[in-house]
């Protein structure tokens, strides 16, 4: 049955001969014909060839140029001044592949892989080739061809390693033997899990990053023959090593992350972005990766509801305004990119959107390259496709004019020498008003939508007349139904459409008498003009500058270190001098250079009168979850291999809000989903800076561990441990293995070259590497903890392996074992007054900080919450209120002590000559709630200023109203608009799961 279907299909279109196939339905024929296109403007790299000729045979270009001799056996197409362009290459697509179905897993989690003989993680499907799931889809093919694509590379976009893609020509009247250009084109990656497996790991972007890293370590190891078992995924990965590698990042931050990974492993990823790369282009341009960019420009919001407008953010409004400039920005920054149609809901917008991009700064040359040569190169197919030249596949477009002119249409799309008509020449736009006189009555006929399904609206003396319209091929018929002499009669006209300006043909009047007509279109300029202005408004360049980050309080330039002499302040030094009044402090070059009374102002230093003001070192939050897109990787009970440093989100408004609360340094910790969490990031809140510049330079590495209820609470399904007893064993097991791992490597590394050749190299394991660092005292643990039993337990585990826990964080029952903590040498970073929310905080008391401090423990107060952290000064006040400590000691809980716990006290945490100028000027006593942070400096640069802040608020208001005003221009009746949909703000804490 199936064969029969194919057969009839081929017969009806004419099969391209497969020489060695046997023919039973007739006789074998062979084509000798050339297709020759003359009088064309042919696009080439060097410019347009005027009056050019292109010669095609057997699907390839055999010749082109301006003086070409035409072979005898040619079919000649005189293009009469039309244009020929290389057809486009769609590099990012799932053409012909059904969306994979989500595997329903019920409520329980799956921790093991479901396949055997393959990699340990189901989301790595390097052995998969998309071709096996592919069926040519004529409708999809037409959609792509109609907007200029001739060739498509397709893959199933599912999984972290998605296997390999294939490349085909979009040819309807041939079979796969003719369409296939490459069966295995490229490898595809992403940070997203496969729908086809419910294996829990990786549950976060940082987990996916770690997984890709481990995969490449494993592949190196496997390729040396070190494995005793077979792994078909790794074998496929090794086999496909030379293929191009495409990465579906689909988000500007993920583009950056993929580029970093690419750099780390020399993978040369070609990275699919989201269209928002203008926001972090300064970081992306440092990498050499070619990008793949969609042109799905956002729709305007429906701004008619003032109540909702208030909820719209500057970022959302700017996106609408700035997105069309994305490609131009990338070009100006020297980034290579392909353009994909993949994210467009309505593919018909494709060319128009590229035209908008061109009006917003993209050059036409770059646009063509992005559609042809660059994707071809990225796919390693640049010897076959993407250009018009001898020997290349005959993939080209015939267009009515220069391709990026607004009115130009694609007429034909030839793929491998196979003709596809996109839009026939005679399908003309006859929309407009025509006046007919039939039986001495005047009929006003308005024709609309003539390109697709024309409809005539008829009026006689401004009375609506019923009618019926049809268009068959290029013949238009309109029937009029009117009451003539009391009864209903009809008249008909029929016209072959050959001009956009008039209708001519023959008709039958209401008396059934034939008549001939030739009616010109009425002049209707007005309507066109109004449409025109609307269109133009779309293409206005930026009204809004891109800021860093590109949100309301973003900055246009990064603040620079200043030279300032603060006079007459009350200084909270955190040093032996204590709190000293009427004292000066001078900062320069990012450092504190002098402290004392009545200091002389160095030349060219700014003087700030700080009388009545208090100056402190910046607040340090040991336990934060702000400014990261992943917090928990709960897919395994240990995720030591993941790092928050991989998933920093520099756009988080919490950074700015925290600066407004005097915070300058934070440790961003992994969450508490598992006993061994991930590596943390210590950043300075340098609002607007590039990610790499935010990291606290030279900071020691830390890792988050977790005890308590959270780690036993795996979501559905069984993940060891479910008790505090099991938690201990997880630690012992992992440290034990890490120790042996270290010994194995030491043994191996001590061998000489010759000996090394005779043994197999140990496997590099990211997770155990990290834990080994902990045992070796090179990485420090900050452990989430609640009740005394578990606190004691973890100290004993550490002692067993001969290292020390650095910080217990939360540590709500620390006061019960404070003496043991002091002896172990661990610090306590706690909440001031949280309790009552779960069972393990039943004995949490606000006196905890003070008791631990008095027992000799280094104590800090933390937030675990991006709202709370902006008022940590008040948390210090609470510690003072409840405890038996001095104000000065309480203040150290949020400054010097966290600096000590994080091993940063040589740089920050107090006012001392030589330390970083991370300082805050407060309006009064820093622990009073009547006080505000007025100026927050990091390394001498002013990152928050209460006066500038007020100006910013006005600016935001103005810009918002300007953008909304512009949007109103789009808000015409019937326009397809988007509901204003501000995103929820999330108070991120330990339990946060990425979605």
């Amino acid at each position, binding site marked *: 049955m199936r064969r029969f279907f194919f057969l009839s299909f081929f017969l009806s279109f004419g099969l391209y001969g497969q020489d060695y196939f046997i023919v039973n339905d007739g006789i074998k024929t062979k084509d000798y014909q050339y297709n020759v296109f003359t009088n064309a403007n042919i696009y080439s790299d060097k410019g347009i060839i005027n009056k050019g000729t292109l010669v095609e045979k057997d699907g390839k270009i055999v010749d082109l140029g301006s003086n070409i001799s035409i072979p005898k056996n040619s079919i000649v197409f005189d293009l009469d001044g039309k244009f020929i362009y290389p057809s486009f290459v769609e590099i990012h697509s799932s053409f012909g592949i059904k969306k994979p179905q989500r595997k329903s897993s019920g409520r329980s989690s799956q921790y093991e892989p479901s396949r055997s003989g393959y990699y340990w993680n189901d989301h790595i499907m390097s052995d998969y080739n998309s071709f096996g799931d592919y069926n040519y889809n004529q409708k999809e093919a037409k959609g792509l061809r109609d907007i200029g694509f001739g060739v498509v590379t397709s893959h199933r976009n599912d999984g972290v390693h998605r296997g390999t893609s294939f490349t085909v020509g979009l040819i309807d009247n041939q079979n796969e033997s003719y369409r296939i250009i490459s069966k295995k084109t490229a490898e595809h990656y992403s940070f997203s899990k496969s729908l086809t497996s419910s294996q829990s790991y990786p549950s976060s972007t940082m987990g996916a990053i770690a997984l890709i890293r481990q995969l490449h370590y494993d592949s190196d190891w496997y390729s040396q023959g070190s494995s005793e078992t077979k792994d078909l995924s790794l074998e496929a990965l090794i086999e496909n090593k030379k293929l191009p590698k495409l990465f579906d990042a689909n988000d500007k931050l993920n583009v950056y992350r993929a580029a970093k990974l690419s750099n780390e492993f020399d993978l040369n990823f070609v990275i699919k972005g989201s269209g928002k790369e203008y926001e972090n282009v300064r970081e992306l341009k440092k990498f050499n990766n070619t990008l793949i960019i969609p042109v799905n420009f956002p729709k305007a919001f429906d701004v008619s509801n003032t*109540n*909702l407008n*208030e*909820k719209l*953010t500057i*970022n959302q409004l700017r996106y609408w305004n700035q997105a069309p400039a994305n490609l131009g920005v990338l070009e100006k920054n020297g980034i290579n990119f392909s353009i994909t149609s993949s994210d467009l809901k309505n593919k018909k917008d494709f060319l128009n959107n590229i035209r908008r991009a061109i009006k917003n700064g993209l050059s036409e040359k770059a646009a063509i390259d992005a559609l042809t040569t660059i994707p071809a190169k990225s796919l390693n197919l640049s010897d076959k496709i993407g250009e018009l030249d001898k020997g290349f596949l005959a993939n080209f477009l015939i267009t009515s004019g220069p391709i990026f002119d607004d009115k130009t249409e694609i007429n034909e799309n030839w793929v491998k020498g196979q003709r596809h008509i996109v839009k026939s020449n005679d399908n003309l736009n006859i929309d407009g008003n025509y006046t007919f006189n039939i039986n001495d009555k005047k009929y006003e006929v308005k024709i609309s939508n003539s390109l697709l399904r024309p409809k005539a609206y008829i009026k006689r003396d401004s009375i609506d007349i019923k009618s019926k319209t049809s268009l068959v091929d290029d013949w238009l018929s309109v029937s009029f139904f009117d009451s003539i002499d009391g009864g209903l009669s009809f008249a008909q006209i029929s016209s072959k459409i050959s001009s956009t300006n008039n209708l001519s043909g023959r008709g039958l009047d209401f008396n059934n008498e034939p008549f001939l007509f030739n009616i010109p279109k009425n002049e209707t300029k007005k309507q066109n003009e109004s449409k025109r202005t609307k269109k133009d408004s779309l293409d206005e360049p930026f009204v809004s500058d891109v800021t860093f980050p590109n*949100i*309301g*309080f973003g900055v246009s330039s990064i603040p620079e270190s200043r030279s300032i002499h603060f006079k007459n302040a009350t200084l909270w030094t955190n040093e032996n001098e204590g709190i000293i009044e009427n004292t000066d402090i001078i900062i320069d070059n990012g450092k504190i250079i002098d402290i004392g009374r009545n200091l002389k102002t160095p030349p060219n230093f700014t003087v700030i009168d700080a009388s009545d003001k208090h100056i402190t070192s910046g607040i340090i939050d040991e336990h934060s979850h702000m400014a990261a897109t992943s917090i928990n990787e709960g897919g395994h009970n240990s995720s030591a291999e993941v790092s928050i440093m991989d998933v920093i989100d520099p756009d988080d*408004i919490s950074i700015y*809000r925290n600066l*407004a609360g005097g915070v300058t340094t934070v440790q961003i910790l992994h969450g508490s989903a598992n006993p061994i969490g991930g590596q943390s990031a210590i950043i300075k809140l340098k609002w607007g800076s590039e990610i790499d510049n935010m990291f606290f330079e030279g900071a020691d590495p830390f890792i988050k561990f977790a005890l308590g*209820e959270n780690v036993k609470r795996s979501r559905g399904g069984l993940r060891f441990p479910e008790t505090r007893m099991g938690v201990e064993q997880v630690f012992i097991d992992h440290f034990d293995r890490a120790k042996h791992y270290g010994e194995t490597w030491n043994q191996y590394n001590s061998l000489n070259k010759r000996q090394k050749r005779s043994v197999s190299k140990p496997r590099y394991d990211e997770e155990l590497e990290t834990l080994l660092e902990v045992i070796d005292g090179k990485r420090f643990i900050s452990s989430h903890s609640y009740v005394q039993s578990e606190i004691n337990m973890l100290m004993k585990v550490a002692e067993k392996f001969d290292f020390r826990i650095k910080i217990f964080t939360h540590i709500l029952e620390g*006061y*019960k074992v*404070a*003496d043991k903590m002091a002896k172990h040498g661990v610090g306590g970073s706690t909440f001031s*007054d*949280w*309790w*009552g*929310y*779960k*069972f393990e905080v*039943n*004995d949490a*008391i*606000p*006196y905890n900080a003070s*008791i631990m401090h*008095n*027992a000799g423990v280094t104590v800090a107060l933390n937030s675990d919450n991006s*709202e*709370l952290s*902006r*008022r940590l000064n*008040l948390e210090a*006040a*609470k510690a*003072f*209120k409840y405890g*038996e400590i001095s*104000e000065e000691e309480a203040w150290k809980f949020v400054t010097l002590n966290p600096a000590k716990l994080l091993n940063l006290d040589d740089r920050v945490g107090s006012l001392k000559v030589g330390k970083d100028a991370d300082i805050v000027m407060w309006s009064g*006593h820093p*622990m*009073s*709630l*009547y*006080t*505000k942070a007025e100026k927050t400096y990091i390394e001498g640069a002013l990152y928050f200023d209460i006066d500038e*802040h007020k100006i910013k*608020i006005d600016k*935001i208001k103005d810009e918002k109203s300007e953008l909304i005003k512009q949007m109103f221009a789009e808000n015409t009746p019937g326009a397809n608009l988007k*509901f204003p*949909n*501000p*995103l*929820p*703000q999330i*108070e991120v804490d330990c339990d946060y799961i990425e979605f």
Partner: protein
Amino acid sequence: MKKIILLNILFLNLIYSQQTPAPDQDKSVLIFGAVTHIGNGDTIKNSIIGFNNGVIDLVAPSDDNILTENIKKYDTIIDATNSHVYPGIIALNTNLGLVEIDAVRATVDDDDIGAYLPEIRSIVAYNAESKAVESMRPNGVLLAQIAPNGGIISGKSSVVQFDAWNWEDAVIEYDQGIHLNWPSPYTYGRWWLGEDRGLKANSNYNNQIKDLKDFFEKSRVNMSIEKSMNLKSIAMRPIFEGLTTVYLYADDEKEIVDGVTFLKGYGIDKIVIVGATGSKNQLNFIKKNNIPVVVKQPYRFPQSTDSDPMETFEIAKKMLDQGILVSIDPTGTTMARVSVRNLPFYAGSFSSFGIDKEIALSLITLNPAKILGIDKDYGTLEIGKSATLFISSGDALDIISNDVTHAFISGREISLETHQTRLWRRYSNKYSNSQK
């Protein structure tokens, strides 16, 4: 099963370890020398306050003569020179005593099943011996509205004082309010179903309002049936009769206008708006309708990423400037219930953005008393009112100076000890002893 039983036993042990309520006042008390903060905006610098049988019988400026004259009239004399006296702080919209530990379902009693529960009464579930309740007192929070949560009509709230053997002894005002959660006209996309995460119109809003209207209509009509068997309608009756206050939970301006218009349509005048985070453009409307507002405390995110981070601190001033009666809703922050003890600091924080400190104090004393209809006895320090007050050695609205040395509820001097202070002493002693 075994696990659950064990857990329960454990709780019983932990929960019943509370301070013994003080006996009725049998000795008169005189406090002198303190700055007295009346609660209505006024202060007396060097004051003298006396109370007997639970009622204040003297509040006046003091000098040597006045002091000498009065000191012999009272049994107990407290020298509060350099200290401050405040009326007991009143918390609105709390679930104190209804929930002990959020994460332990067995201890959660603030939200029952069903959308319309006017018959539900919080007071009967109020645990006067909750450890969270006793921890309020050392910061000066002495009275509260205990309110149920959830649904559209969550039920009825009562007013309690924080030093009692049981709920019957604790109650000041039974079933004073009914709590109406106005449906939201917007919802966020259900991302887990693949929807856009952003805000969108609640397509069900009109239906929800229609259902609410049906419920009100039914309740109103049933009033005419004398021997009604419909408990819900009976429970609704006092709001139509103007006996019970409706606490309208509304944040967005559309919710506020729709909710108030709806209630006014039933001739209901006793309306209090709770939340009101998005009300800044409707303050005029609120004032015109003469509705008090219990505004959410300031420690929360501003409305959007572009909003002034200080926006949440400034809203109270904007309302006061309009002449609206304002109090503070302590919810909407992390650990909201146990953090009700921070209520004085919420008021202090509002004050740091342009409100006079004494006015800020009235947000948590006189104003909530007015809202609860208990201002005849509570909310200010005036002769004839209940001697529910506390002494702090410093400014009670600022964290670093809030230091409560004495607290009285109806003249009874209450313990300032808690589960937490006991642990504090126990472990402070452990280390100081071991050092010796």
